[in-house]
C-alpha cells in the first residue's frame, strides 16, 4: 500500500473522509428521526420529543390492520422467492452449462428488466393482468414481482454454477448416478450456499419493491411498503407518530432478513455481482 505524506494529500484525505462522514451522519439522522418520532408523545419545535410512549405501535397495528398486511407481505414474498428460485436455478443451470445458438439473446432478455425502469414494463403488464382479472389479487402481485426477481436469481446463479467443475457431475454419472440422485446428492449440496444467498437477496428486494406491487395491489393484497406509502400519502389524516411506528415495523421486518442475508453475502452483492479482491 502507498501512503502519500504531502500536505495537499492530507487535506484531500481529510476532505474525503469528512464528506463520507457527513453522509453517514445524515443517513443515520433520517433513520433515527423515524424511530424517535414513533416513540414520541409530542414533538413540535424542540430537539427531542417531550415524552416517550409505546402507544403508537398499538394504535398503528390496529389502524392499519397490520396483522393481515404483514401476513400478506410474507405470503407474497415467499411465493416470489420459491417460484423465482425454482425457475431461476434451472434456467441458470442450462445457461451456465450449455452453449447454444441464440444464447446471447436469452441472456439479454434476462438483463433487460434490470435496465428498464419498473414503471415502463409495469404499466403494460398491469394492464394485461387487470384484463385477465388478476389485478388486485394475490397472484397478480406475485406475477408482477417475478419480472425483476427471476432475472436477478438467474444472473446471480450463472457465475456460481460455472465455478462448479462439470467433471464432478461426469464422475457421478460414471459411478451410475441417475438424473434424480445426481441432482439431489451432487448438485443440490454444491448449489445450496449460492441459492441461499440469491434467494435471501430476492427476499429483501421483494419486501422493499414498491412500484410494481403498487400498480396491481388491491385492498386485500397490499404489502407493507404499499400500505406505508398510502399512509404517508394521506398523512394529516392520522398522527405522524402512528405512521412512523408503522415505518419502524416495516424497517424491522426488512432488517431482520437483511441481517440474515449478510451472513451469507457481501453487502456490495446486493447491488452487483462483485468480484472482490482483497486490497493489499
Amino acid at each position, binding site marked *: 500500500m502507498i501512503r502519500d505524506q504531502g500536505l495537499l494529500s492530507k487535506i484531500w484525505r481529510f476532505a474525503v473522509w469528512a*464528506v463520507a462522514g457527513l453522509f*453517514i451522519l445524515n443517513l443515520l439522522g433520517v433513520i433515527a428521526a423515524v424511530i424517535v418520532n414513533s416513540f414520541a408523545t409530542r414533538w413540535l419545535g424542540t430537539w427531542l420529543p417531550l415524552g416517550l410512549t409505546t402507544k403508537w405501535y398499538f394504535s398503528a397495528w390496529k389502524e392499519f390492520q397490520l396483522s393481515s398486511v404483514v401476513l400478506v407481505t410474507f405470503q407474497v414474498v415467499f411465493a416470489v422467492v420459491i417460484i423465482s428460485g425454482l425457475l431461476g436455478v434451472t434456467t441458470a443451470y442450462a445457461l451456465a452449462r450449455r452453449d447454444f445458438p441464440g444464447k446471447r439473446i436469452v441472456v439479454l432478455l434476462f438483463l433487460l428488466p434490470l435496465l428498464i*425502469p419498473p414503471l415502463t*414494463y409495469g404499466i403494460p403488464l398491469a394492464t394485461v393482468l387487470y384484463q385477465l382479472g388478476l389485478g388486485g389479487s394475490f397472484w397478480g402481485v406475485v406475477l408482477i414481482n417475478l419480472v425483476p426477481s427471476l432475472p436477478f436469481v438467474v444472473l446471480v446463479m450463472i457465475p456460481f454454477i460455472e465455478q462448479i467443475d462439470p467433471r464432478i457431475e461426469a464422475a457421478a454419472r460414471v459411478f451410475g448416478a441417475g438424473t434424480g440422485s445426481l441432482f439431489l446428492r451432487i448438485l443440490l449440496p454444491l448449489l445450496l450456499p449460492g441459492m441461499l444467498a440469491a434467494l435471501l437477496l430476492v427476499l429483501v428486494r421483494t419486501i422493499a419493491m414498491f412500484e410494481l406491487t403498487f400498480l396491481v395491489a388491491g385492498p386485500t393484497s397490499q404489502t407493507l411498503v404499499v400500505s*406505508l*406509502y398510502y399512509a404517508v400519502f394521506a398523512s394529516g389524516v392520522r398522527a405522524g407518530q402512528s405512521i412512523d411506528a408503522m415505518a419502524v415495523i416495516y424497517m424491522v421486518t426488512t432488517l431482520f432478513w437483511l441481517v440474515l442475508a449478510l451472513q451469507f453475502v457481501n*453487502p456490495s452483492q446486493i447491488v452487483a455481482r462483485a468480484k472482490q479482491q482483497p486490497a493489499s
Partner: protein
Amino acid sequence: MRAPSLRTRLASRGFDGTTLLVLPGLAVMLGLFIYPFFYGLADSLMPKEGVWYANYANFFSDPFQYRTIAATLWLAIPVTIVNLAFAVPIAFRVRLMTRQRLLTTILVLPITLGTVFVADGLLTFLGPQGWFNRVMILVGLFDGPVKLTNNYWGVFASLVITGFPFAFLLTLSYVTGIDPAIEQAAATLGASPRQRFMRVFLPLLVPGLAVTFCLAFVQAFAVFPSAVLLGSPAGSTRVISIAAYQAAFEQYDHSLGSAIAMIMGAVELVIVLLVLGSRSLFYRGPTGGTKG
C-alpha cells in the same frame, strides 16, 4: 455408414436435455415481459379516440405532459453526476481500508429500506423543525428554517440518500478489481498521486464508471414514490412516471398510460446508449497485472 441421428446433431450444436431446462424461465419472461411490452406498444397505438398516433401527438403537444421529460432529466442527470462524483474519491479511500464491512453494511441500509421509507424519514428530518434545519441554524449556515420538503430539493435529497450508496458500492467493486500492483508500479516509476489517478486508474475505470452511471441513472430516472411524497407532484417534480401512472390508473386511460411508459423507456434507453457508446472511445482491456 449412417448419418448421425437428429439427436446427435442437435447435441453437437448445444441442444440437449439440459438445454431444455432454460424453457420454463424463458416462458415466464416471454409471458410477463415480452408479451406485455408488445401489448403495451400496440395498445398505445390504439387511442381512445383519434388517429393511431393520437396518444403520442397529445403528449408532445401538451406542455403539462411533455415538460415531465425535462423535469425528470433535470432531477436524474444532476443527481447521478453528484452521486458518481462523490462515489469515486470515497471508493478510492475505502479501497485501502482493511475492514470495509461495517461501512458497506451501513450504506446498504437505505437501498434495502427503499425509497418510501427514506421519503417518510426525510419528511421529518428535513422539515422546518427537523434536525437538519436546526443544525444548520445552530452553526449559522441558515438564518431561519429553509423549506426543503415538497419541492425539488426534497426529491434531490432522497435520490442522493438512496443513489449514492448504490453508486458507491458499484464503484468500489470496480476499484477493488484493479490490481494494486499496477499502482505500485506507477508509484515506483515516480508518478504523483494525481498522475496515478489521471493516467493509470481513470482509463482503467472508465468502462466500469460508464456502467455505474447507467445503472445509477436508471434508478434516478425511475423516481416515483419520493417525487410524490417529498416533491410537488403537480409542479416542479411532476416526473414522467407520475404522468404515466396518472394516465393509466387515475384517468383509466391505459392506452395513454402505455404510450407514456413507452416514451419513458425510449428516453432512458437513448441516454444509456449514448453513455455506453462513448465508452468505446476509451481503453478497454484487462485490469489485472499479470502477464498473458
